[in-house]
Protein backbone atom coordinates (compact mmCIF):
# COMPACT_ATOMS: atom_id res chain seq x y z
CA UNK A 1 0.00 0.00 0.00
CA UNK A 2 1.55 3.26 -1.02
CA UNK A 3 1.36 6.36 1.09
CA UNK A 4 -0.98 9.27 0.38
CA UNK A 5 0.65 12.70 0.13
CA UNK A 6 -1.03 15.32 2.29
CA UNK A 7 -0.20 19.01 2.51
CA UNK A 8 -1.04 20.85 5.73
CA UNK A 9 -3.19 22.74 6.43
CA UNK A 10 -5.25 19.89 5.06
CA UNK A 11 -8.21 20.64 2.78
CA UNK A 12 -11.69 19.56 3.84
CA UNK A 13 -11.98 17.46 0.69
CA UNK A 14 -8.76 15.52 1.36
CA UNK A 15 -9.58 15.09 5.00
CA UNK A 16 -12.96 13.51 4.29
CA UNK A 17 -11.33 11.00 1.94
CA UNK A 18 -8.86 9.70 4.53
CA UNK A 19 -9.69 6.30 6.02
CA UNK A 20 -8.44 4.62 9.17
CA UNK A 21 -5.36 2.59 8.24
CA UNK A 22 -4.23 4.84 5.37
CA UNK A 23 -0.52 5.47 5.34
CA UNK A 24 0.29 9.11 4.71
CA UNK A 25 3.26 11.37 4.13
CA UNK A 26 2.57 14.78 5.64
CA UNK A 27 4.08 18.01 4.36
CA UNK A 28 3.47 21.70 4.95
CA UNK A 29 2.89 23.52 8.23
CA UNK A 30 1.91 22.04 11.58
CA UNK A 31 2.03 23.24 15.21
CA UNK A 32 3.47 21.49 18.24
CA UNK A 33 1.87 21.37 21.69
CA UNK A 34 1.96 18.86 24.53
CA UNK A 35 0.75 18.74 28.14
CA UNK A 36 1.81 22.14 29.48
CA UNK A 37 0.89 24.09 26.32
CA UNK A 38 -2.52 22.39 26.17
CA UNK A 39 -3.18 23.25 29.77
CA UNK A 40 -2.34 26.90 29.13
CA UNK A 41 -4.46 27.06 25.98
CA UNK A 42 -7.36 25.49 27.86
CA UNK A 43 -7.06 27.97 30.72
CA UNK A 44 -6.80 30.86 28.24
CA UNK A 45 -10.08 29.81 26.66
CA UNK A 46 -11.73 29.39 30.06
CA UNK A 47 -10.83 32.98 30.85
CA UNK A 48 -12.45 34.00 27.58
CA UNK A 49 -9.16 35.11 26.06
CA UNK A 50 -7.74 34.37 22.61
CA UNK A 51 -5.38 31.52 21.80
CA UNK A 52 -1.83 32.45 20.77
CA UNK A 53 -2.56 31.07 17.28
CA UNK A 54 -5.72 30.33 15.35
CA UNK A 55 -6.26 26.57 15.46
CA UNK A 56 -8.98 26.62 12.78
CA UNK A 57 -8.01 24.31 9.93
CA UNK A 58 -4.67 23.44 11.53
CA UNK A 59 -2.93 20.28 12.75
CA UNK A 60 -1.29 19.90 16.16
CA UNK A 61 1.59 17.49 16.72
CA UNK A 62 2.00 16.19 20.28
CA UNK A 63 5.75 16.39 20.69
CA UNK A 64 8.40 17.70 23.05
CA UNK A 65 11.66 17.47 21.07
CA UNK A 66 15.15 17.11 22.47
CA UNK A 67 17.33 20.25 22.17
CA UNK A 68 18.80 20.73 18.70
CA UNK A 69 22.50 20.06 18.36
CA UNK A 70 24.47 23.04 17.00
CA UNK A 71 23.67 23.35 13.31
CA UNK A 72 20.63 21.09 13.46
CA UNK A 73 17.05 22.28 12.86
CA UNK A 74 15.62 20.24 15.73
CA UNK A 75 16.55 17.34 18.01
CA UNK A 76 14.72 14.01 18.12
CA UNK A 77 11.04 14.66 17.64
CA UNK A 78 8.77 11.62 17.88
CA UNK A 79 5.17 11.62 19.13
CA UNK A 80 4.09 11.52 22.75
CA UNK A 81 1.01 9.74 24.13
CA UNK A 82 -2.08 11.59 22.92
CA UNK A 83 -4.45 10.45 25.68
CA UNK A 84 -3.00 13.01 28.08
CA UNK A 85 -4.32 15.75 25.81
CA UNK A 86 -7.85 14.28 25.65
CA UNK A 87 -9.24 16.52 28.35
CA UNK A 88 -8.26 19.64 26.43
CA UNK A 89 -9.03 18.42 22.91
CA UNK A 90 -12.81 18.72 22.30
CA UNK A 91 -12.75 22.49 22.87
CA UNK A 92 -9.95 22.85 20.30
CA UNK A 93 -11.90 20.71 17.84
CA UNK A 94 -14.93 22.97 18.39
CA UNK A 95 -12.69 25.88 17.40
CA UNK A 96 -11.89 24.16 14.11
CA UNK A 97 -8.76 22.08 14.80
CA UNK A 98 -8.64 19.56 11.94
CA UNK A 99 -5.70 17.27 12.57
CA UNK A 100 -3.79 15.74 15.47
CA UNK A 101 -0.60 13.70 15.37
CA UNK A 102 0.46 11.58 18.35
CA UNK A 103 0.40 7.98 19.47
CA UNK A 104 -2.03 5.83 21.41
CA UNK A 105 -5.71 5.69 22.26
CA UNK A 106 -8.16 8.62 22.28
CA UNK A 107 -11.16 8.91 24.58
CA UNK A 108 -14.77 8.44 23.46
CA UNK A 109 -15.36 12.19 23.97
CA UNK A 110 -12.53 13.04 21.59
CA UNK A 111 -13.75 10.55 18.97
CA UNK A 112 -17.31 11.91 19.20
CA UNK A 113 -16.05 15.46 18.87
CA UNK A 114 -13.91 14.44 15.88
CA UNK A 115 -16.97 13.00 14.15
CA UNK A 116 -19.00 16.10 14.90
CA UNK A 117 -16.28 18.51 13.78
CA UNK A 118 -14.83 16.36 10.98
CA UNK A 119 -11.26 15.94 12.12
CA UNK A 120 -8.58 13.27 11.73
CA UNK A 121 -6.11 11.67 14.13
CA UNK A 122 -2.78 10.39 12.85
CA UNK A 123 -0.20 8.29 14.68
CA UNK A 124 3.49 8.63 14.05
CA UNK A 125 5.81 5.83 15.16
CA UNK A 126 6.53 6.25 18.85
CA UNK A 127 10.25 6.02 19.47
CA UNK A 128 11.34 6.99 15.97
CA UNK A 129 12.29 10.55 16.85
CA UNK A 130 15.63 10.50 15.03
CA UNK A 131 13.97 9.48 11.79
CA UNK A 132 11.11 11.98 12.11
CA UNK A 133 13.57 14.81 12.81
CA UNK A 134 14.86 14.39 9.24
CA UNK A 135 11.45 15.36 7.87
CA UNK A 136 11.35 18.65 9.80
CA UNK A 137 12.72 21.52 7.74
CA UNK A 138 12.15 24.54 9.93
CA UNK A 139 11.13 25.40 13.47
CA UNK A 140 9.78 28.70 14.75
CA UNK A 141 8.53 29.52 18.26
CA UNK A 142 4.91 30.67 18.28
CA UNK A 143 4.12 30.96 22.01
CA UNK A 144 5.00 29.96 25.59
CA UNK A 145 8.73 30.06 24.97
CA UNK A 146 9.34 29.66 28.72
CA UNK A 147 8.12 26.06 28.44
CA UNK A 148 11.25 25.06 26.50
CA UNK A 149 10.59 21.79 24.68
CA UNK A 150 6.91 22.10 25.65
CA UNK A 151 6.44 25.49 23.95
CA UNK A 152 4.28 25.88 20.84
CA UNK A 153 6.37 25.74 17.67
CA UNK A 154 5.41 26.06 14.03
CA UNK A 155 7.09 23.32 11.99
CA UNK A 156 7.57 23.00 8.27
CA UNK A 157 7.63 19.32 7.41
CA UNK A 158 8.22 17.26 4.31
CA UNK A 159 7.15 13.65 3.91
CA UNK A 160 6.56 13.04 7.60
CA UNK A 161 5.38 9.39 7.82
CA UNK A 162 2.16 8.66 9.72
CA UNK A 163 -0.89 6.41 9.72
CA UNK A 164 -4.53 7.52 9.94
CA UNK A 165 -5.75 6.01 13.19
CA UNK A 166 -9.15 7.66 13.57
CA UNK A 167 -10.83 9.10 10.49
CA UNK A 168 -13.53 11.76 10.32
CA UNK A 169 -16.23 9.08 10.56
CA UNK A 170 -14.80 7.75 13.81
CA UNK A 171 -13.33 4.48 12.45
CA UNK A 172 -10.49 3.40 14.73
CA UNK A 173 -7.48 1.63 13.22
CA UNK A 174 -6.33 0.34 16.62
CA UNK A 175 -9.49 -1.79 16.62
CA UNK A 176 -9.60 -2.60 12.92
CA UNK A 177 -5.88 -3.46 12.63
CA UNK A 178 -6.13 -5.92 15.49
CA UNK A 179 -9.30 -7.44 14.06
CA UNK A 180 -7.61 -7.94 10.69
CA UNK A 181 -4.77 -9.72 12.44
CA UNK A 182 -7.23 -12.13 14.07
CA UNK A 183 -9.00 -12.80 10.80
CA UNK A 184 -5.74 -13.44 8.93
CA UNK A 185 -4.45 -15.71 11.64
CA UNK A 186 -7.75 -17.49 12.25
CA UNK A 187 -7.56 -17.00 15.97
CA UNK A 188 -10.20 -15.71 18.30
CA UNK A 189 -9.73 -12.14 19.45
CA UNK A 190 -9.69 -11.71 23.18
CA UNK A 191 -8.94 -8.63 25.22
CA UNK A 192 -8.57 -10.79 28.34
Amino acid at each position, binding site marked *: *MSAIQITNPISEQELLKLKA*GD*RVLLSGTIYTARD*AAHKRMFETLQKGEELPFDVAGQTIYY*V*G*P*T*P*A*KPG*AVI*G*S*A*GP*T*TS*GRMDKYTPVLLDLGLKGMIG*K*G*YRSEEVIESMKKNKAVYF*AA*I*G*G*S*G*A*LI*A*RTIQSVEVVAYEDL*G*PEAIYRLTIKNF*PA*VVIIDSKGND*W*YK*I*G*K*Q*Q*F*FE*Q*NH*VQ*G*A*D*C
Partner: protein
Amino acid sequence: MAVRTIFYEEIVNQVANMCQEANFELGQDVIQAFQAALKKETSETGKDILEQLLLNADIARSERVPMCQDTGVSVFIVEVGQDCHISGGSLYDAINEGVKKGYEEGYLRHSIVDHPITREKSKGYNTPSIIHIELVPGEDLVIHMSAKGGGSENMSALKMLKPADGLDGIKDYILSIVAQAGPNACPPLVVGVGIGGNFERCAYLAKKSLFRPIGHRSERPEIAELEKELMGKINELGIGPQGMGGNTTALDVKIEIEPCHIAALPVAVNLNCHASRHKEVRI
Protein backbone atom coordinates in the same frame (compact mmCIF):
# COMPACT_ATOMS: atom_id res chain seq x y z
CA MET B 1 42.42 -5.84 54.42
CA ALA B 2 42.99 -2.98 52.02
CA VAL B 3 40.00 -1.00 50.91
CA ARG B 4 39.87 0.04 47.27
CA THR B 5 39.28 3.70 46.53
CA ILE B 6 37.06 4.84 43.70
CA PHE B 7 37.06 8.54 42.88
CA TYR B 8 33.98 10.70 42.58
CA GLU B 9 35.10 12.21 39.26
CA GLU B 10 35.47 8.83 37.65
CA ILE B 11 31.87 7.97 38.53
CA VAL B 12 30.64 11.32 37.15
CA ASN B 13 32.41 10.76 33.84
CA GLN B 14 31.37 7.15 33.45
CA VAL B 15 27.74 7.99 34.19
CA ALA B 16 27.73 10.94 31.77
CA ASN B 17 29.06 8.67 29.07
CA MET B 18 26.55 5.90 29.78
CA CYS B 19 23.61 8.31 29.57
CA GLN B 20 24.64 9.38 26.09
CA GLU B 21 25.51 5.93 24.80
CA ALA B 22 22.21 4.52 26.07
CA ASN B 23 20.27 7.15 24.16
CA PHE B 24 22.32 7.08 20.95
CA GLU B 25 23.06 3.38 20.58
CA LEU B 26 20.27 0.89 20.74
CA GLY B 27 21.61 -2.39 22.20
CA GLN B 28 22.43 -5.27 19.89
CA ASP B 29 19.91 -7.39 21.79
CA VAL B 30 17.07 -5.08 20.71
CA ILE B 31 18.34 -4.82 17.12
CA GLN B 32 18.50 -8.59 16.85
CA ALA B 33 15.03 -8.90 18.34
CA PHE B 34 13.71 -6.45 15.70
CA GLN B 35 15.35 -8.47 12.94
CA ALA B 36 13.93 -11.74 14.25
CA ALA B 37 10.47 -10.15 14.60
CA LEU B 38 10.62 -8.82 11.06
CA LYS B 39 10.94 -12.39 9.75
CA LYS B 40 7.87 -13.54 11.69
CA GLU B 41 5.60 -10.51 11.46
CA THR B 42 2.54 -11.10 9.26
CA SER B 43 1.11 -7.57 9.20
CA GLU B 44 2.38 -5.30 6.41
CA THR B 45 2.07 -2.20 8.57
CA GLY B 46 3.82 -4.09 11.36
CA LYS B 47 6.75 -4.97 9.11
CA ASP B 48 6.95 -1.42 7.87
CA ILE B 49 7.14 -0.12 11.44
CA LEU B 50 9.88 -2.59 12.42
CA GLU B 51 11.89 -1.53 9.39
CA GLN B 52 11.48 2.13 10.29
CA LEU B 53 12.60 1.40 13.85
CA LEU B 54 15.76 -0.29 12.54
CA LEU B 55 16.42 2.71 10.32
CA ASN B 56 15.76 5.05 13.24
CA ALA B 57 18.33 3.18 15.35
CA ASP B 58 20.83 3.51 12.52
CA ILE B 59 20.32 7.26 12.24
CA ALA B 60 20.58 7.71 16.00
CA ARG B 61 23.85 5.78 16.14
CA SER B 62 25.52 7.41 13.15
CA GLU B 63 24.41 10.97 13.88
CA ARG B 64 24.72 10.60 17.66
CA VAL B 65 21.22 11.85 18.32
CA PRO B 66 18.74 10.24 20.72
CA MET B 67 16.65 7.46 19.15
CA CYS B 68 13.60 8.82 20.97
CA GLN B 69 12.82 12.37 22.11
CA ASP B 70 11.76 10.99 25.47
CA THR B 71 15.25 10.44 26.78
CA GLY B 72 13.62 9.29 29.98
CA VAL B 73 14.24 9.28 33.67
CA SER B 74 17.63 7.75 34.39
CA VAL B 75 17.17 4.76 36.64
CA PHE B 76 20.22 3.17 38.24
CA ILE B 77 20.85 -0.08 39.99
CA VAL B 78 24.28 0.18 41.54
CA GLU B 79 26.06 -2.82 42.99
CA VAL B 80 28.44 -1.45 45.57
CA GLY B 81 31.19 -3.81 46.67
CA GLN B 82 31.43 -3.58 50.44
CA ASP B 83 35.23 -3.38 50.21
CA CYS B 84 35.31 -0.24 48.12
CA HIS B 85 35.45 3.33 49.33
CA ILE B 86 34.15 6.30 47.39
CA SER B 87 36.33 9.33 47.77
CA GLY B 88 35.50 12.95 46.99
CA GLY B 89 31.77 13.03 47.62
CA SER B 90 28.63 10.95 47.88
CA LEU B 91 27.75 8.25 45.38
CA TYR B 92 24.29 9.78 44.90
CA ASP B 93 25.76 13.19 44.09
CA ALA B 94 28.28 11.66 41.69
CA ILE B 95 25.54 9.86 39.78
CA ASN B 96 23.30 12.91 39.58
CA GLU B 97 26.18 15.09 38.48
CA GLY B 98 27.00 12.52 35.79
CA VAL B 99 23.42 12.50 34.56
CA LYS B 100 23.24 16.27 34.45
CA LYS B 101 26.51 16.44 32.52
CA GLY B 102 25.60 13.61 30.15
CA TYR B 103 22.13 14.94 29.39
CA GLU B 104 23.08 18.58 29.05
CA GLU B 105 26.20 18.02 26.94
CA GLY B 106 24.53 15.33 24.83
CA TYR B 107 21.51 17.53 23.97
CA LEU B 108 19.20 15.04 25.66
CA ARG B 109 15.86 16.24 26.97
CA HIS B 110 15.31 17.52 30.50
CA SER B 111 12.13 15.69 31.49
CA ILE B 112 11.94 15.99 35.29
CA VAL B 113 9.57 18.11 37.36
CA ASP B 114 10.58 18.74 40.96
CA HIS B 115 7.08 18.83 42.31
CA PRO B 116 4.60 16.20 41.13
CA ILE B 117 1.60 18.43 41.85
CA THR B 118 2.67 21.95 40.93
CA ARG B 119 4.68 20.45 38.02
CA GLU B 120 7.52 22.87 38.63
CA LYS B 121 10.52 21.91 36.48
CA SER B 122 13.58 20.67 38.37
CA LYS B 123 16.64 22.91 38.48
CA GLY B 124 19.16 20.15 37.92
CA TYR B 125 19.04 19.16 34.27
CA ASN B 126 17.08 15.85 34.12
CA THR B 127 17.83 15.12 37.77
CA PRO B 128 17.30 13.82 40.40
CA SER B 129 17.68 10.30 39.06
CA ILE B 130 16.21 7.22 40.61
CA ILE B 131 19.02 5.32 42.29
CA HIS B 132 18.79 1.85 43.85
CA ILE B 133 21.82 0.62 45.74
CA GLU B 134 22.61 -3.01 46.39
CA LEU B 135 25.48 -3.86 48.72
CA VAL B 136 27.46 -6.86 47.47
CA PRO B 137 30.69 -8.66 48.37
CA GLY B 138 33.90 -7.52 46.64
CA GLU B 139 35.55 -4.20 45.82
CA ASP B 140 33.99 -3.27 42.50
CA LEU B 141 31.31 -0.78 41.69
CA VAL B 142 28.92 -1.96 38.98
CA ILE B 143 26.57 0.67 37.60
CA HIS B 144 23.53 -0.41 35.60
CA MET B 145 21.76 2.50 33.93
CA SER B 146 18.46 2.67 32.11
CA ALA B 147 16.80 5.62 30.34
CA LYS B 148 13.18 4.83 31.06
CA GLY B 149 10.49 6.42 28.93
CA GLY B 150 7.30 7.89 30.35
CA GLY B 151 4.85 6.33 27.89
CA SER B 152 5.58 2.77 28.90
CA GLU B 153 6.03 3.61 32.59
CA ASN B 154 2.56 5.16 32.65
CA MET B 155 0.95 1.91 31.50
CA SER B 156 2.67 -0.19 34.21
CA ALA B 157 0.71 -1.51 37.21
CA LEU B 158 0.85 -3.44 40.46
CA LYS B 159 -1.77 -5.54 42.18
CA MET B 160 -1.89 -7.41 45.44
CA LEU B 161 -3.45 -10.69 44.24
CA LYS B 162 -4.79 -13.29 46.63
CA PRO B 163 -2.77 -16.49 47.02
CA ALA B 164 -5.91 -18.35 45.84
CA ASP B 165 -5.67 -16.53 42.49
CA GLY B 166 -2.64 -18.72 41.84
CA LEU B 167 -0.71 -19.06 38.61
CA ASP B 168 -3.78 -18.52 36.42
CA GLY B 169 -4.56 -15.29 38.22
CA ILE B 170 -0.98 -14.12 37.69
CA LYS B 171 -1.08 -14.86 33.97
CA ASP B 172 -4.47 -13.20 33.49
CA TYR B 173 -3.33 -10.10 35.31
CA ILE B 174 -0.14 -9.74 33.24
CA LEU B 175 -2.04 -10.22 29.97
CA SER B 176 -4.69 -7.70 31.00
CA ILE B 177 -2.06 -5.03 31.68
CA VAL B 178 -0.41 -5.57 28.29
CA ALA B 179 -3.82 -5.53 26.55
CA GLN B 180 -4.80 -2.31 28.31
CA ALA B 181 -1.53 -0.64 27.37
CA GLY B 182 -2.17 -1.33 23.67
CA PRO B 183 -0.43 1.29 21.53
CA ASN B 184 0.30 3.68 24.40
CA ALA B 185 3.44 1.97 25.66
CA CYS B 186 5.05 1.94 22.17
CA PRO B 187 5.02 -1.76 21.40
CA PRO B 188 6.88 -3.99 20.66
CA LEU B 189 7.44 -4.14 24.39
CA VAL B 190 9.74 -5.69 26.90
CA VAL B 191 7.49 -6.86 29.72
CA GLY B 192 9.07 -6.91 33.18
CA VAL B 193 7.29 -8.78 35.93
CA GLY B 194 7.90 -8.98 39.67
CA ILE B 195 6.12 -11.65 41.69
CA GLY B 196 6.36 -11.88 45.49
CA GLY B 197 8.28 -9.76 47.97
CA ASN B 198 5.92 -7.10 49.28
CA PHE B 199 4.33 -3.97 47.85
CA GLU B 200 7.52 -2.03 47.08
CA ARG B 201 9.85 -5.00 46.52
CA CYS B 202 7.56 -6.39 43.88
CA ALA B 203 7.69 -3.17 41.85
CA TYR B 204 11.45 -3.12 42.22
CA LEU B 205 11.73 -6.72 41.00
CA ALA B 206 9.70 -5.86 37.89
CA LYS B 207 12.00 -2.93 37.16
CA LYS B 208 15.12 -4.99 37.87
CA SER B 209 14.02 -7.70 35.47
CA LEU B 210 14.08 -5.14 32.64
CA PHE B 211 17.83 -4.73 33.11
CA ARG B 212 18.40 -8.28 31.81
CA PRO B 213 19.21 -8.39 28.08
CA ILE B 214 16.55 -9.56 25.64
CA GLY B 215 16.69 -13.32 25.19
CA HIS B 216 18.16 -13.92 28.63
CA ARG B 217 16.02 -16.51 30.48
CA SER B 218 15.51 -16.86 34.22
CA GLU B 219 17.82 -19.33 35.89
CA ARG B 220 14.82 -21.01 37.52
CA PRO B 221 13.45 -23.55 35.05
CA GLU B 222 9.79 -23.04 36.04
CA ILE B 223 10.13 -19.26 35.68
CA ALA B 224 11.97 -19.56 32.36
CA GLU B 225 9.02 -21.68 31.14
CA LEU B 226 6.54 -19.10 32.36
CA GLU B 227 8.47 -16.34 30.56
CA LYS B 228 8.24 -18.31 27.31
CA GLU B 229 4.59 -19.16 27.77
CA LEU B 230 3.63 -15.55 28.46
CA MET B 231 5.66 -14.34 25.50
CA GLY B 232 3.57 -16.63 23.27
CA LYS B 233 0.28 -15.51 24.81
CA ILE B 234 1.15 -11.80 24.62
CA ASN B 235 2.02 -12.12 20.95
CA GLU B 236 -1.38 -13.68 20.34
CA LEU B 237 -3.10 -10.54 21.64
CA GLY B 238 -2.78 -9.07 18.14
CA ILE B 239 -1.69 -5.62 19.33
CA GLY B 240 1.42 -5.65 17.13
CA PRO B 241 4.01 -2.95 16.47
CA GLN B 242 2.64 0.42 17.65
CA GLY B 243 -0.72 -1.22 18.34
CA MET B 244 -1.62 -1.32 14.67
CA GLY B 245 -2.12 -5.09 14.57
CA GLY B 246 0.37 -7.92 14.21
CA ASN B 247 2.13 -10.68 16.07
CA THR B 248 5.04 -8.67 17.45
CA THR B 249 3.59 -7.23 20.64
CA ALA B 250 6.48 -8.19 22.93
CA LEU B 251 10.17 -8.69 22.22
CA ASP B 252 10.60 -10.43 25.55
CA VAL B 253 9.09 -11.19 28.95
CA LYS B 254 11.23 -11.14 32.10
CA ILE B 255 10.15 -12.39 35.49
CA GLU B 256 11.81 -12.07 38.89
CA ILE B 257 10.41 -13.72 42.00
CA GLU B 258 11.03 -13.44 45.73
CA PRO B 259 9.64 -15.02 48.92
CA CYS B 260 6.55 -13.33 50.36
CA HIS B 261 4.05 -13.37 53.26
CA ILE B 262 1.67 -16.36 53.61
CA ALA B 263 -1.28 -14.05 52.94
CA ALA B 264 0.21 -12.26 49.93
CA LEU B 265 0.72 -12.59 46.19
CA PRO B 266 1.95 -9.24 44.88
CA VAL B 267 2.39 -8.95 41.11
CA ALA B 268 3.91 -5.93 39.35
CA VAL B 269 4.11 -5.40 35.61
CA ASN B 270 6.63 -2.82 34.46
CA LEU B 271 6.36 -2.24 30.74
CA ASN B 272 9.26 -1.06 28.68
CA CYS B 273 8.97 0.20 25.13
CA HIS B 274 11.12 -0.99 22.24
CA ALA B 275 13.50 1.87 23.08
CA SER B 276 14.88 -0.40 25.79
CA ARG B 277 17.97 1.59 26.71
CA HIS B 278 20.43 0.03 29.11
CA LYS B 279 24.12 0.34 29.77
CA GLU B 280 26.40 -1.22 32.31
CA VAL B 281 29.86 -0.30 33.55
CA ARG B 282 32.14 -1.94 36.08
CA ILE B 283 34.60 0.30 37.89
